[in-house]
């Protein structure tokens, strides 16, 4: 049995969250009626010229600084020439030989908990193309140029990943980062965050890289993993069968879970890149870099390290809570309102809250229970007004009614019973109503203890303080 090593590099396209396009003043809002956000520049009309959007440049610099990369003091926009109906000028303005960002890194956490550094070869600015529409046009094709000219940051990794899982971990890390930096909304369904994967395999220990295939159309984390796994199996199958892998672009088909050849290297376009004479070289001076540096937020890794050291959270919990800036902010705001109890806050944010958000497909920013409201609930656990179990019920009520924890506790009379006399009375009633179980317990069937706890809880509508109940019950049942 031969041992194969998988080599993966990713090219991620992050749509920059600017209000206007990279070279024109048109809006970039998603989902507008076709061609309603395409002006003469976007349409590639004769005589029009591109003017660079300074905000897009600052966003690229921000990404570069956040990944410890070099920011090129002088980078060049180039034209990538090819004909396609959704490419109005017949060329895409991109960066080729001299990108704005070079030599960055990002750390990922592997399954065994160890960290691995992934190299970022480069990140460059470019414009997106439009879209071809084929449906409902009676056999004709339509062109929607709303997306044409939308700013993209293409982030190219080194071939540093060795499994589909590593590739997904890296992609998620980039996804988290660009959202932290507020340079991309990360919306994969709308195509704001897309990924191509370069995949090859080689015999374990071999020095030379194998022939790679470029996988396209990987628009979810799940597809990235499945497509890479499929492709790795396919390439190993070819090589073990004595064949050789062809360098080509392959399209992933999620319905069939397979990759299909799009075009081979021989069919590849000669893009005839050359510096765009309509745009001056992009000069970025120290003042701009310092200015952008001043806008950098606490980065995910820094935040996670702080949660672990200052809040005493596990690495895993810190990682989960810092996966998005909104989640981390929410968690921190709960801890602040509670004046401590980071573990309680972490458990509820990662547990009930995340579960409810997932169930209803909601974003944390639009959560039906805001951080103050959740802190209000946790405070009642803290001061023993309610038990953790009752708190879950209160949480559900808060989620559906939008009321505060206290309002629900009062309205539903959920305040925990801590009055020893009341609990004793309930225990006595239960003992009187269940003489046979009582006899069995006293005869040595210890397992029935749980039965009595349940009955008392039922009788008190779950409000008996569990610790007190346990203690009193043990005494009474003797």
């Amino acid at each position: 049995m031969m041992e194969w090593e998988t080599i993966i590099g990713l090219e991620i396209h992050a749509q920059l969250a600017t209000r206007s396009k990279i070279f024109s003043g048109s809006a970039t809002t998603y989902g507008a009626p076709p061609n309603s956000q395409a002006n003469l520049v976007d349409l590639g009309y004769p005589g029009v010229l591109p003017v660079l959007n300074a905000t897009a440049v600052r966003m690229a610099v921000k990404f570069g600084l956040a990944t410890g990369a070099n920011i090129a003091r002088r980078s060049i926009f180039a034209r990538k020439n090819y004909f396609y109906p959704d490419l109005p000028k017949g060329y895409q303005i991109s960066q080729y030989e001299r990108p704005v960002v070079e030599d960055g890194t990002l750390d990922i956490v592997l399954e065994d908990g160890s960290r691995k550094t992934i190299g970022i070869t480069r990140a460059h600015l470019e414009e997106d193309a439009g879209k071809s529409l084929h449906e409902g046009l009676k056999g004709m094709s339509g062109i929607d140029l709303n997306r044409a000219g939308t700013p993209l940051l293409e982030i190219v990794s080194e071939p540093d990943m060795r499994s589909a899982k590593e590739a997904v971990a890296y992609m998620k890390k980039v996804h988290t980062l660009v959202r932290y930096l507020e340079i991309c909304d990360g919306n994969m369904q709308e195509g704001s965050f897309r990924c191509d994967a370069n995949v090859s395999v080689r015999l374990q220990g071999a020095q030379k890289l194998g022939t790679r295939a470029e996988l396209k159309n990987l628009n979810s984390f799940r597809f990235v993993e499945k497509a890479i796994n499929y492709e790795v199996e396919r390439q190993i199958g070819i090589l073990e069968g004595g064949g050789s892998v062809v360098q080509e672009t392959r399209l992933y088909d999620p319905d069939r879970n397979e990759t299909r050849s799009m075009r081979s290297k021989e069919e590849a376009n000669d893009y005839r890149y050359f510096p765009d004479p309509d745009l001056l070289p992009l000069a970025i001076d120290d003042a701009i870099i310092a200015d952008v540096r001043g806008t950098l937020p606490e980065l995910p890794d820094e935040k996670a390290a702080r949660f672990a050291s200052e809040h005493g959270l596990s690495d895993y919990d810190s990682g989960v809570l810092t996966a998005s800036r909104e989640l981390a902010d929410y968690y921190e705001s709960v801890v602040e309102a509670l004046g401590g109890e980071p573990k309680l806050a972490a458990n509820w944010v990662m547990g009930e809250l995340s579960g409810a958000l997932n169930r209803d497909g909601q974003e944390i920013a639009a959560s039906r229970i805001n951080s103050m409201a959740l802190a209000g609930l946790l405070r009642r656990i803290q001061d023993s007004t309610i038990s953790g179990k009752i708190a879950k019920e209160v949480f559900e009520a808060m989620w559906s009614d939008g009321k505060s924890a206290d309002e629900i506790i009062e309205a539903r009379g959920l305040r925990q019973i801590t009055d020893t006399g009341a609990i004793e009375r309930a225990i006595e009633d239960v003992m009187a109503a269940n003489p046979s179980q009582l006899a069995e317990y006293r005869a040595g069937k210890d397992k029935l203890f749980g039965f009595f706890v349940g009955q008392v809880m039922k009788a008190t509508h779950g409000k008996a303080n569990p610790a007190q109940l346990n203690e009193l019950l043990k005494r009474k049942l003797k």
Partner: protein
Amino acid sequence: MHTLTIAELSAGLHARRFSSVELTRSLLARIARLNDVLNAFLTVTEEAALAAARRADETLQAGRGGPLTGIPIAHKDIFCTNGIRTTCGSRILENFIAPYDATVVERLSAAGAVPLGKTNMDEFAMGSSNETSFYGPVHNPWDVKRVPGGSSGGSAAAVAARLVPAATGTDTGGSIRQPAALTGITGLKPTYGRVSRYGMIAFASSLDQAGVLAQSAADAALLLRAMAGFDPRDSTSVDQPVPDYHSGLAAPIKGLRIGLLREFFDSGLDPEAAKRIHAALDVFRAQGATTTEVSLPNLPLSVPTYYVVAPAECSSNLSRFDGVRFGYRCENPRDLLDLYKRSRGEGFGAEVKRRIMTGTYVLSAGYYDAYYLKAQKVRQLISDDFRRAFEQVDVVIGPTSPTPAFEIGAKMDDPITMYLNDIYTIGANLAGIPAISVPCGLVSGLPVGLQIMGPVFSEARLLNVAHRYQQETEWHRMIPRGYE
């Protein structure tokens, strides 16, 4: 009225000796009468012109207005004009109505100028004879069997024939200066970036520059003042104040250091034309200027350099003409590839195709370094040559074109000979420096031009030197027979 300069016309308008409407009507009538022979205008916008003239008259009546208020002009058909057909001399834009005004058009209109129409040109400004126009060649008013030069041949012929006092043009490798020389008028190509390229249909973006064709340096100064300046819509336009080019025109040129380019007085120059240039130099010396010989050793490489850079850029710039969104589309395309191939194949003429193919070739993988990259390096060397020369001299003077106007059809079969027409003018484009051509005599009854080049942003100096020459000579007052 048609023989008057802008300065003279403006004086007449402000003194209310005649109205802009009267002037406009008279020139429109002249165009109607003479354009059939010359083919200088592709589109005449009579109604819009008269409306603009009426507005100008109102301004003048109110005692307002500037030196261009009410002055009829023409625009080369490379400038987009809102609501008006803009063909760029090509079939592919035969029915293209531009939805906006180029910055040059906008600024001249804002200054009160009255555009009468759009002038003929070589297709996409690719040519030195105006013979590549889809709409037929322009005829030189000095001899209608001859070319007016190109690519701004329509503008040049229109001004030379006094159909308009001045017209806009563009110069990528000599397209203002060479036709100005061949038709006996004054043509100014400003510094690259001095005038906005927004709305000017691109040929070779790093070389294209808008300028003017006029009867005199003084008129060119008035027009440039209105056209020039930073435009946020063109990233390559330069944010530098625009001087009052007119006020410095008469400054004495005593002590002016003139450089004579050894490379410009070579065997390719017509000996009679060389004599006219030398006579012109005497005029400058008589005013206290000195002449010294300077050398630009890399200048002989300018033509091959240009014919790599310009086609490379044009091959990309012209990709947008694909039959999809505007312009010519072939009949009944079978599929997308057929649509592209036939729309472009039928829409573009032979010279444009030749340059697109050349440009595509020089940018191709495996050839890029040998051609495009090398050409860019030579371009830098030529630029450095000029910079060094301007450390020794204030301006460089030489011929504009190797020969006077040649006959229509004479060079169409031989692109290399045609390309050599631009041998004296291309250097300024590659170096991005300004240059002006002024008429300096006749050879066998045909005008020849004197070219004055200066360092970047020296337009005021060039106009001053040209004006001083025109104060001492009458060549710019010559009007071809039948057009007086």
